[in-house]
């Protein structure tokens, strides 16, 4: 056996004789005691140790009760635009919009705050959504040909969306699957029947809500054939049903359109063909004029025809036929609306029909009215659209007032009543990802003054929007007004920062800040080029805000820091640019001062192989009201800014990259100091923008971009079908082969201790300002703390001149401490606790009387959070006090950490500060301050969802956001007190008797299923709150858990390390 480390103790120690005997004597006493009682004592010791463990605070009943009052995990609402929408539905009577997605979600939106979410058990795309007339019910068709009936039921005064029934249409044994493949769904106004058009040409009838097939009422293509005159019978073979419509006035008649161009009107009572229309072109869709006297059909060649309806004369030819974008070959018009108005000609609104050669790749919806013609040109594929018009069937005119278009990446509503057809700004469904989100920053409890100023600045940006009241306003929200004003700031790839009102259920865009103006980019040239390039015909008009293509990836925003008290904002980006901005209510023209900061401090032998820094625009630049930049710090080398901190009281901004960090005095506009953190052997950090992985990602993105641009959608798009399948089928196939390849490669992981020579150890992960005892316990001073990827913490003591001499004397800094964590894990958080172990307040918080001033009497403590451990050190003399190991015990690493105040739901004014922690496994934990005791743990994000985990941001009051898709934030709450979730009521007086409250399960399947999907593979850990039954059942069932886990693990693909 190798000898013990204590060997070293032996060498060269000399004890005096006296000391020697004394120590021996002492040991003697102890040893006698130990040897005689050794077994008992040791036993007791171990027992005590065990007791200590069992008596962890987790088992203290009082604390347990308190924990229940403080912590509770809920996923409350999804903000943003649904990922991969696939269907649109609208109920004119309820004034509620429904969006279905390819992952099987159904989302309902009414008045702002009225939101519902449902998830089909099947992970299939929603192909069609139809509200049942006059009821709080809707039917969905999935791409597996199943129909689902959903209803909004009122329980405890709040409506809940739940699935009632599902159904799959089955043909007789042996029939082809196409015989029952549903193509069109028509909910009949009698509220009980669904007419289902199929690929075979048959129309089936099912009775609701039981989905009983009424076989005797089936309108078979044979029966239709019988009722047709000879010549029509010969010319056409029946094909799939393309259109099904009920007569606008007479519910006993329905219109059936077949794909080969035949349209018939069917008498439901007598089961006969009333009249028929034959078109020479493939039929795409039909619109029936309000009075039932005119039918407008649209066709695959880009034409639309009008057919007068009269039973006596059969028209072989249409009354009028036109090809709006002819004469050259055009794409199909896939959906058409023909809407009458009191004044003037009817509105003709149709999708597609653009000249195939030159505009075939555009996603257009054209509106023709009188002499006005506009082709609204969308930046993403149009999924479906609808027109909001007069609901009352007896009204003489449609008088359409709004066009609602669901595009793949955004919802666009156009005001058809105001001249020029301006857009209406939606209060929800914001396209968060109009440019890819690169970072986010949350600021809680915004002072009213700043809030109003931001809104005022934002309203000027929204001047081009229509003044129309939001037309989709069904339901009433019962949620209490938000308790405080919260801002969520998102940084985007195109160099913009968006300010979102995150106080309530609706995430609303308040202000959009662009940093592009500060820089010289090549867009300036291309913009003018674009302007010239647009021709007069077709009358295209770009609409929507979705624009994923960044002109220059260097503009991307990486870090944001807003001081809510002073209105100072710091924004940092991909090319090492750091901007300091100030809120100005007026437009202003001024020069942005540019300062270059060399983070390498003239160290020799380094060569930056990455991108160049951005060129700043010289001279005065005009800025609109809002946040206006006044200082630009350019890091050299221009590596991505990895950390940022702003202290508005001291007027200092600190920034870090993979090379080092610096402190800048934005009042005197002077660099205070820089510190290079680079390890001499770290070549990778020097080479360029973060390794090859990133550049691979970039090239992938670019190739997708090319794909999108060159795509010519020659394919016919079913109006509410499952479009885009072909397009993405290619991607999924590629992904699948990629996964297969990865599985073939041996997945192995290298086990090696971290070393100082590892790459990117100098990467500055966190920066923190604190007024604390850095050097001695008698005097506190401003300080700046920085933590690196290599486990080092630097502390600089600062001297900031008093306010009256702030401009005259320089800010002075000196390195006071450097702490090297032996485990060398990246430092992700630094925090100083005051004498009462409360985190130090934010700058200016005390000055604004919003926080108690920190306790400067007792001794301060330093909390360092690395990816692996939490450690508390004393200050000013740094000695280790406490720690909590995370990785060593459970293998999870800290990804995000934030201090949050948890208020008690029971006791007013009681609250505690704790750390909210997100790990790389997607768990969220609360770790107590200052004792670092784990309080609760919840699984939140699937561990495979790397981007979701990376995007997580905590609020100061125990809530948080993370991206569940590029365009959606999930909002969650860890607090019992701060909970923002939709509570709303949708009431249709006619349907009240339908919504019978049911007992039993206290939770709608909507919620249960939603959670099941989100809660991923983790068991919910130690903390099980008395929660809804379903959730418990699901998570307690070990078999289910294991199954989920195994599928998740099976899905993982990793390359060899």
């Amino acid at each position, binding site marked *: *056996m*190798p*000898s*013990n*480390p204590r*060997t070293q*103790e*032996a060498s060269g120690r000399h*004890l005096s004789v006296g000391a*020697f*005997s004394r120590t*021996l004597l002492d*040991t*003697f006493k*102890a*040893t*006698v005691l130990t*040897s005689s009682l*050794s077994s008992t004592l*040791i*036993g007791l*010791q*171990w027992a005590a*140790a065990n007791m*200590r*463990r069992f008596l*962890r605070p987790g088992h203290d009943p009082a604390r347990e009760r308190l924990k229940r009052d403080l912590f509770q995990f809920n996923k409350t609402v999804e903000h943003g635009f649904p990922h991969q929408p696939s269907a649109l539905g609208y109920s004119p009577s309820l004034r509620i919009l429904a969006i279905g997605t390819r992952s099987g979600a159904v989302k309902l939106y009414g008045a702002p705050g009225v939101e519902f979410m449902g998830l089909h058990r099947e992970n299939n795309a929603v192909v069609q959504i139809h509200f049942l007339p006059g009821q709080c019910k809707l039917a969905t068709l999935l791409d597996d040909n199943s129909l689902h009936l959903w209803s909004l039921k009122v329980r405890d005064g709040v409506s809940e969306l739940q699935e009632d029934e599902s159904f799959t249409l089955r043909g007789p044994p042996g029939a082809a699957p196409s015989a029952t493949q549903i193509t069109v769904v028509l909910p009949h106004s009698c509220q009980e029947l669904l007419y289902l058009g199929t690929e075979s040409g048959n129309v089936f009838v099912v009775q609701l809500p039981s989905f009983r097939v009424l076989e005797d009422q089936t309108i078979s293509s044979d029966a239709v054939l019988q009722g047709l005159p000879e010549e029509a019978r010969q010319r056409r073979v029946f094909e799939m049903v393309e259109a099904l419509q009920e007569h606008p006035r007479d519910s006993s008649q329905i219109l059936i359109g077949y794909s080969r161009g035949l349209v018939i009107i069917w008498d439901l009572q007598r089961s006969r063909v009333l009249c028929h229309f034959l078109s020479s072109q493939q039929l795409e869709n039909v619109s029936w004029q309000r009075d039932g006297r005119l039918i407008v059909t649209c066709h695959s060649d880009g034409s639309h025809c009008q057919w007068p309806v009269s039973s006596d004369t059969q028209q072989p030819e249409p009354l009028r036929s036109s090809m709006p974008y002819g004469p050259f070959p055009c794409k199909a018009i896939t959906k058409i609306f023909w809407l009458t108005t009191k004044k003037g000609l009817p509105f003709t609104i149709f999708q597609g029909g653009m000249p195939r050669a030159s505009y075939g790749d555009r996603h257009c919806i054209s509106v023709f009215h009188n002499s006005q013609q506009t082709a609204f040109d969308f930046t993403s594929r149009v999924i479906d659209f609808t027109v909001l018009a007069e609901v009352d069937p007896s009204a003489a005119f449609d008088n359409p007032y709004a066009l609602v278009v669901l595009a793949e990446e955004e919802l666009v509503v156009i005001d058809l009543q105001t001249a020029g057809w301006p857009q209406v700004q939606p209060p929800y469904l914001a396209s968060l990802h109009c440019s890819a989100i690169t970072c986010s920053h949350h600021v809680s409890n915004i002072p009213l003054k700043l809030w109003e100023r931001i809104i005022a600045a934002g309203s000027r940006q929204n001047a081009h929007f229509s003044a129309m009241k939001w037309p989709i306003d069904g339901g009433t929200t019962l949620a209490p007004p938000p308790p405080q004003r919260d801002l969520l700031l998102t940084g985007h790839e195109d160099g913009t920062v968006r300010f979102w009102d995150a106080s309530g259920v609706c995430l609303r865009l308040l202000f959009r800040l662009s940093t592009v103006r500060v820089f010289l980019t090549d867009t300036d040239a291309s913009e003018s080029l674009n302007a010239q390039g647009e021709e007069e015909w077709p009358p295209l008009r770009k609409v929507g805000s979705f624009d994923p293509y960044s002109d220059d990836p260097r503009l991307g925003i990486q870090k944001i820091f807003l001081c809510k008290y002073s209105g100072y904002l710091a924004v940092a980006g991909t090319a090492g640019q750091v901007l300091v901005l100030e809120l100005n209510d007026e437009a202003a023209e001024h020069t942005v001062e540019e300062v270059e900061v060399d983070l390498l401090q003239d160290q020799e032998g380094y060569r930056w192989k990455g991108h160049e820094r951005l060129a700043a625009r010289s001279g005065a630049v005009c800025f609109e009201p809002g946040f206006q930049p006044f200082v630009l710090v350019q890091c050299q080398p221009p590596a991505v800014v990895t950390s940022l901190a702003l202290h508005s009281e001291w007027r200092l901004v600190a920034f870090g990259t993979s090379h080092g960090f610096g402190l800048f005095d934005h009042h005197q506009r002077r660099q205070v100091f820089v510190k290079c953190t680079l390890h*001499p052997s770290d070549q990778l950090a020097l080479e360029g923008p973060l390794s090859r992985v990133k550049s691979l990602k970039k090239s992938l993105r670019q190739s997708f971009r090319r794909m999108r641009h060159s795509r010519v959608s020659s394919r016919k798009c079913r109006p509410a079908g499952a479009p885009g399948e072909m397009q993405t089928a290619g991607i999924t196939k590629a992904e699948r082969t990629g996964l297969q390849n990865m599985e073939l490669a*041996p*997945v*192995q*992981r*290298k086990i*090696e*201790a971290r070393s*100082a*020579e590892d790459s990117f150890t100098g990467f500055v992960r966190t920066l923190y300002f604190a007024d604390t005892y850095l*050097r001695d316990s008698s005097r506190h001073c401003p300080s700046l703390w920085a933590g690196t990827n290599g486990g080092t913490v630097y502390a600089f003591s600062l001297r900031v001149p008093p306010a009256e001499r702030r401009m005259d004397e320089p800010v002075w800094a*000196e*390195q*006071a*401490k*450097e*702490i090297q964590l*032996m*485990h060398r894990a990246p430092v992700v958080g630094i925090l100083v606790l005051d004498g009462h172990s409360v985190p130090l307040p934010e700058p200016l918080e005390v000055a604004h009387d919003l926080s108690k001033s920190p306790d400067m009497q007792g001794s301060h403590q330093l909390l360092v959070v690395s990816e692996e451990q939490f450690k508390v050190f004393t200050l000013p003399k740094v*000695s280790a*006090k406490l*720690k*909590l*190991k995370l*990785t*060593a*015990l*459970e*293998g*999870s*690493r800290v990804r995000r950490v934030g201090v949050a105040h948890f208020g008690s739901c029971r006791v007013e004014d009681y609250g505690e500060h704790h750390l909210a922690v997100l790990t790389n496994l997607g768990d969220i934990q609360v770790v107590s301050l200052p004792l670092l005791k784990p309080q609760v743990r919840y699984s939140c994000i699937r561990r495979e969802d790397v981007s979701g985990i990376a995007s997580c941001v905590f609020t100061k009051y125990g809530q948080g956001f993370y991206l569940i898709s590029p365009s959606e934030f999930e909002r969650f709450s860890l607090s019992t007190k701060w909970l923002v979730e939709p509570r709303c009521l949708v009431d249709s007086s006619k349907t009240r008797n339908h919504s019978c409250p049911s007992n039993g399960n206290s939770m709608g399947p909507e919620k249960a299923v939603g959670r099941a999907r989100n809660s991923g593979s983790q068991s919910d850990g130690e903390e099980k709150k008395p929660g809804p039954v379903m959730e418990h059942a699901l998570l307690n069932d070990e078999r289910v858990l294991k199954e989920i*886990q195994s599928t998740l693990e099976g899905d*993982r693909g990793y390359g060899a390390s």
Partner: protein
Amino acid sequence: MNRGHRHGAGSGCLGTMEVKSKFGAEFRRFSLERSKPGKFEEFYGLLQHVHKIPNVDVLVGYADIHGDLLPINNDDNYHKAVSTANPLLRIFIQKKEEADYSAFGTDTLIKKKNVLTNVLRPDNHRKKPHIVISMPQDFRPVSSIIDVDILPETHRRVRLYKYGTEKPLGFYIRDGSSVRVTPHGLEKVPGIFISRLVPGGLAQSTGLLAVNDEVLEVNGIEVSGKSLDQVTDMMIANSRNLIITVRPANQRNNVVRNSRTSGSSGQSTDNSLLSYSQQVEPSFEPEDEDSEEDDIIIEDNGVPQQIPKAVPDAESLESLTQIELSFESEQNGFIPSNDVSLAPIASGTNTEFEARAADQKLLEEDGTIITL
């Protein structure tokens, strides 16, 4: 001075033990309290005192029951020496500068040559320049097999000691599956396996780990149900003191129980006292021993220091026994990794060794530490 030792010496009293110490040609005899040997440091001082060589660096050795000359240079082997001495503890002292290291080792005093080794290494008897593997005072553990007595024979718990960055741990792990006996019969369950050993790495050089060994625990935490990445992170987080329990792919080299015949280097006879702890607490019970993980602080004077641990207030019997306890458990290779209890870090377990390790660390890092 050593009244305590003189007392009762020479008699047949059970509690004392006679010591015969030889330095050069001189012998000294004295006695020690067997049950209370004290620390090696004190013993060393005592020897220097009795031989009247207070300022001479010496190497201390003793003859064990097999007649091997073994070094005494720390508390462990000192206690070992005391506990195995029967009835006499024979001590041999050499001046450090004149020391003959080759004297130490197996069969050193009773020079009976092993026939087999002679056959295999015929030149063994020739006086070849002796390779000094290491100075005895530089002995430090690189790896060890621990908890042999409490683990199933099919398992092996290996501790790898990582000193700074001298040598890489040098192994890789992968996902795999193993067959387990369950109530439902044989079942294939996912597991983590060693996939590769880096030549020259610590793992390979110990010979205790091999490719395809299944990893069952990392520092006392079971890996079942954890992903490859989690296990990787756990191992890296514990890399300075990594204890992994494996089920060796090759089950033929397992330690066979109850065959502690050879006490040559004390590997298997060490647990005279310590098994108490295991009887009471058979499972792996980690205690906080993070000395190997001490962080470094550089104050503005630019001198790197180890970060001291904040001393807990209660200096009582409890803290004393706690030290004893941690010392004992450590002696058994019980290196706790865990501080679930989150009790304040106990002071007093620091040793010079740790400080030294930290110093080494600093030397390496001098290049990067730039102080203002």
